[in-house]
């Protein structure tokens, strides 16, 4: 494999442009495209005892849903277009986790969509794309 590209997806429809762009750069038969979906989760949240007791079950359900409803259909589509694709689903902070997966798979490029958050909101809380640009050691392409 010459190149490993990583694309972050939110839901099956909303990251279409980032995905299209990524697919366009990965159709040479030599590039692997990793489709990453991050389930927003923090290790420092405050939960009730009931939530904790059911956490493992919920996590399995969340992963299952992310597979069947988001990542698997996208990966199948890509494979039909003869693109070497692979899906990855993780829990965590979106930007940090995308960055960690990129390092784990030795990606050469990260492609993410620009989320539709307002300017004030993204300045206050930061957006996934902004944070990635700050922390990533490899090029990040932000698709508008």
């Amino acid at each position, binding site marked *: 494999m010459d190149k490993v590209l990583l694309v972050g997806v939110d839901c099956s429809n909303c990251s279409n442009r980032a995905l299209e762009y990524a697919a366009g750069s990965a159709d040479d038969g030599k590039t692997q495209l990793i489709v990453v979906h991050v389930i927003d989760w923090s290790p420092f949240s405050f939960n009730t005892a*009931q939530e*904790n007791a059911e956490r493992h079950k919920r996590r399995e359900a969340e992963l299952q849903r992310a597979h069947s409803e988001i990542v698997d259909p996208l990966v199948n589509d890509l494979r039909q277009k003869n693109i070497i694709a692979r899906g990855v689903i993780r829990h965590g902070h979106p930007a940090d986790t995308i960055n960690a997966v990129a390092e784990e798979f030795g990606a050469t490029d990260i492609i993410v969509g620009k989320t539709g958050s307002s300017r004030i909101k993204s300045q206050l809380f930061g957006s996934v794309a902004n944070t990635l640009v700050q922390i990533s050691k490899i090029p990040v392409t932000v698709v508008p």
Partner: protein
Amino acid sequence: MPRKIMGHCIALAMILFTVSLPVLASEGVDARINEAVKPFADTVAGLVFVSFPVAGVQIPFVLVWLIFAATLFTLYFRFINFRGFKHGFELVRGDYNDPMSAGEVTHFQALATALSGTVGLGNIAGVAVAVSLGGPGATFWMILAGFLGMSSKFVECTLGVKYRNEYTDGTVSGGPMYYLSKGLAERSDRLKTLGKVLAVLFAVFCVGGSFGGGNMFQANQSFTQLVAVTGGDTSWLADKGWLFGLIIATLVGMVIIGGIQGIARVTSKIVPLMGVLYVSAGLIIIFMNLSEVPVAFTSIVTGAFSAEGIAGGVIGVLFQGFKRASFSNEAGIGSAAIAHSAVKTNRPVTEGFVALYEPFIDTVVVCTITALVIIVTGTWNPSVDPSQGVALTSAAFESNISWFPWVLTVAVVLFAFSTMISWSYYGLKAWTYLFGESMITDAVYKLLFLFFIVAGSSMQLGSVIDFSDAMIFAMAFPNVLGIYFLLPVVKKELDEYWSDYKAGKLKKFGKAANRV
């Protein structure tokens, strides 16, 4: 959907059940319940709090039982409360969190959940009573009891994780019922029967405690504070305990029956905030009276060993400090082991290290701040009525920050609410251990729980509250007795883990991997 219909029926029954209570209360039914329960409650309370005189002070045996156990655990595990402190922090911080397990319950989350069940009225009301009755010196013994309690929690929570049940549907359930029955059965056939008996006893007491100290006491005390801050006897709310009870019961019901996790989630986020606010306000007052602080510390230390004018002398001071610390941090009671056991780990002892922080934060930090505020503001006086604990703390804060009683009231109500949610879970786990898991047993417990919220806030049930306090402390008998047999199990886990830790065999992840 039958489940949904069932849910509606339960909600309806709940409303009818609880609405009838205030009517009963107004007709003097509370007095009659009191009369009826009194002989039984007094007998049970008398048994649990059976006392013997030491230097003229009546010391309840259960307190000696708890302190002896905590001291023994501290020595047996060679001061694990101190040597495990740093490692506990590394675990809470997430140095050892495997990214592949992201999404599971972390050490931090298990600790935070357990803390929300313990930080509460004990830290606000109990400490005020200890300082009033025992003088500043009681603080010294309270802190010492906090440090010793860390070892008890270490043992309980390690066992809680080790013997928890992991069900095929992915849910986890743990606590003393499981380590007493499974753990003792593992030791020998003869202990198997004992383990069963202890587990059942524990579960019975835990259900009782969940209705009392974990529910009625909380409802009652938070309502009292609400009335006090809105004008005392002249307050519009003064005779509307039932209304307060109904509101709280509805909110709790929405969480535990309606499954509306949103409320619980919001509370679980506000409560730590209130905790931080309370501690910060305490620190501000301590700084405002900085010149008094050296005197306060001197009086804490000298008061601990020479108690003039305190009932029972030094023993009396020690007793007050130890008592309130145990009330507050529940070390040795076994409740926290239920909350801690949901953590994701394959080394049970890791949760033991994390649990060290529970008595530390609860008693050594929060209780000490309350005590210091009361001492530096000079609010304590030995003639206080023990049931007026919250009022005393409130007055201490008010003397420097006039509007703080309002904030304190919100904090007290929220702490009470989160303690109720926690205890409803502990009680339910014990209940289903006794009666099996089904929708009916589940619903019966939850309805009873809501009933007791309204009862606790609308009635003055002195005996019932004494009885439920007794139930919480009764949990310590089967729990600690069983733990004695399981100490070698914990020792083995600890020794194996500690040598791996010292040899650097435990894998760190993320940024922590680069830290030396």
